[in-house]
């Protein structure tokens, strides 16, 4: 296998959890809810996903466990921010702190265990095509799923009536409410979708990326996913580009470390985080004309009945 091919394969693998989590958060934020608990939902998804797969022996059941775990976490968030009108930033932080503790508790007895990771697609003839075969037809199911999901989200947001209503809730909840749309119910569904995606993204790590679970294995990916949504200006198309760019940064620094570039490994490991800061600054700066964020993002809505 060529080095370039290997690099592209690992970039796709590294980008998939970012893309999945960011897709969910994009929908949540488009409905006007800022859920900063992505990291917490992801890490619980990782622990539950691994637990499910290890006990059942099935990757699919593991992935479902991850999705359900992420959704349950997001239910807590929805109850607090939508039901009790609590500040979304503070609640998101609480969700992350809780998630890190819970995942340690759930995952403790699985540390050191191994599973067989999700199988890669293999189509006789297609997968064997030199160079592009393995990249296009040799991935695990999560990679294809993440791409299908973002296409579906694009279609939903821009081509369906329900998507239009969801965006209306995110831009002006008072008007949406006045038109008779159930703002809180729509936001609940969006938050649940975000939770499911984050849980699946977390589960991807021990089910397909590595064959084991370690505490704290999400390593800030949830936060990077949040930054990606800003990077993408809340648009699905740019989200894909952003996720793959970040995956590439992660992988290139790993390869640079492996090749023994004379830079200490810690500086290379810091690259994705520094890149996030720089990208956020550059984008926010380019956007001084007017914000592209959903206008009601992060604001509390209490219907006056």
């Amino acid at each position, binding site marked *: 296998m060529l080095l370039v091919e290997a690099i592209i394969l690992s970039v796709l693998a590294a980008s998939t959890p970012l893309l999945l989590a960011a897709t969910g958060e994009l929908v949540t934020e488009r409905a006007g809810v800022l859920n*900063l608990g992505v990291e917490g939902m992801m890490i619980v998804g990782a622990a539950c996903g691994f637990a499910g797969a290890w006990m059942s022996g099935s990757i699919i059941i593991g992935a479902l466990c991850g999705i359900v775990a992420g959704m349950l976490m997001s239910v*807590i968030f929805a109850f*607090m921010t939508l*039901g*009790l*009108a*609590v*500040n979304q*930033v*503070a*609640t998101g*932080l*609480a*969700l992350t*702190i*809780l*998630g*890190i*503790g*819970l995942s*340690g*508790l759930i995952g*403790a007895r699985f540390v050191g265990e191994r599973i067989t990771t999700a199988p890669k697609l293999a189509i006789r003839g297609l997968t064997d095509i030199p160079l592009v075969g393995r990249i296009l037809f040799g991935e695990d199911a999560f990679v294809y799923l993440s791409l299908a999901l973002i296409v579906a989200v694009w279609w939903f947001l821009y081509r369906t009536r329900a998507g239009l209503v969801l965006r209306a809730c995110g831009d002006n909840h008072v008007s949406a409410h006045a038109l008779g749309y159930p703002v809180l119910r729509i936001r609940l569904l969006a938050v649940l979708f975000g939770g499911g995606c984050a849980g699946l993204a977390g589960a991807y790590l021990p089910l397909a990326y590595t064959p084991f679970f370690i*505490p704290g294995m999400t*390593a*800030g990916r949830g*936060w990077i996913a*949040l*930054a990606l949504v*800003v990077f993408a200006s809340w648009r699905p198309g740019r989200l894909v580009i952003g996720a793959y760019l970040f995956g590439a940064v992660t992988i290139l620094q790993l390869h640079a470390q492996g090749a023994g570039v004379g830079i*200490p490994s*810690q*500086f290379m*490991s*810091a690259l994705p*985080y*520094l890149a*996030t*800061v720089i990208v*956020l*600054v550059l*984008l*926010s*700066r380019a*956007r*001084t004309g007017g*914000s592209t964020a959903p206008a009601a993002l992060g604001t509390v809505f*209490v219907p006056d*009945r």
Partner: protein
Amino acid sequence: MQLVLEKRAERSRTIALVSPLIAIGLTLVTMSVLFAVLGKNPITALGVYFIAPLTDGYSLQEIAVKATPLVMIAIGLSLCYLANAWNIGAEGQFLIGAVAGSWIAVKTQGTEAGHWVLPAMLVAGAAAGALYALIPALCRVKFGASEILTSLMLVYVADLLLDYLVRGPWRDPAGFNFPTTAEFDPVATVPVLIEGGRLHLGSIIALVVVAAAFVLLDRTIKGFEIRVVGVAPRAARFGGFNANQLILLTFAVSGALAGLAGIIEVAGPIGHLQPGISPGYGFTAIIVAFLGRLNPVGILIAGLFLALTFIGGEQAQITMKIPLDVTKVFQGILLFYVLACDSLILYRFKLVSAAPQVQRAAR
């Protein structure tokens, strides 16, 4: 049945006072259930967590030692949160403060350097923390980049920098390859208050910080500006307060306090620089700030309470084999209940059945 929020005419003062207590009560109930699920006797476990550490002198000192960084960081964070600026990277500012102060300790090691070393370390720690916190604050003020995400990203960067230094240039040559600097010289160490004890000068500094924050918020115009900008940004603009300047100020102060806490922790209880100097103080301090209602005295009490959970958690792990992660779960649940109870200050919760509404609509 449906839960409906009804806005109160004004903030309820009674609930503002009792809501942290309700939150702690609800957390204890939830924890009892969790202990029972883990197969431990809830009464015994709660006793080990919350009563046992209060019964011997060593643990009491240890609570004050753990509360010191929590209170110092949380005071700084409360200023940010009052001004509606979201610094969640205190953990990184804590680490950078520890690194900057340790630099002086490492460079003067084994020299004739006199008693200026410790004060210089404390100043360096606070300055480095403040500068590190100003990065996200400037990105927000100058470019409009979310300070939440940038301040958090810088936590990972600080962690890796510390890791590099103690594994590379600053590693103790006589340290059997462990990633740690040599023990700091006596002039580079925070003195203990009682001979042979653990309680150190840092706890006094933390109390001074609490008093200073109280005066700032309660008795000065700057404190008033900070609170107005957070509660009523429009009114603050009409009043001619500079919101951007206040963001920079609160970030710098909170970074300085976190950095100071970092170098005190390293030059005090730990005595050398190594990875893992913080069990998440910077994040737990967020809980302390909210549990203390963003009020200096409240933060002091909340800091002592959360320090108690750290000590209780360690003892529960040793005596009852309860995993350490339970402490984090406890802290997360506590923050949820605190936030939920705070909602009661502004709103009245009402359960209404859906049926009558439907009738009214039909009419």
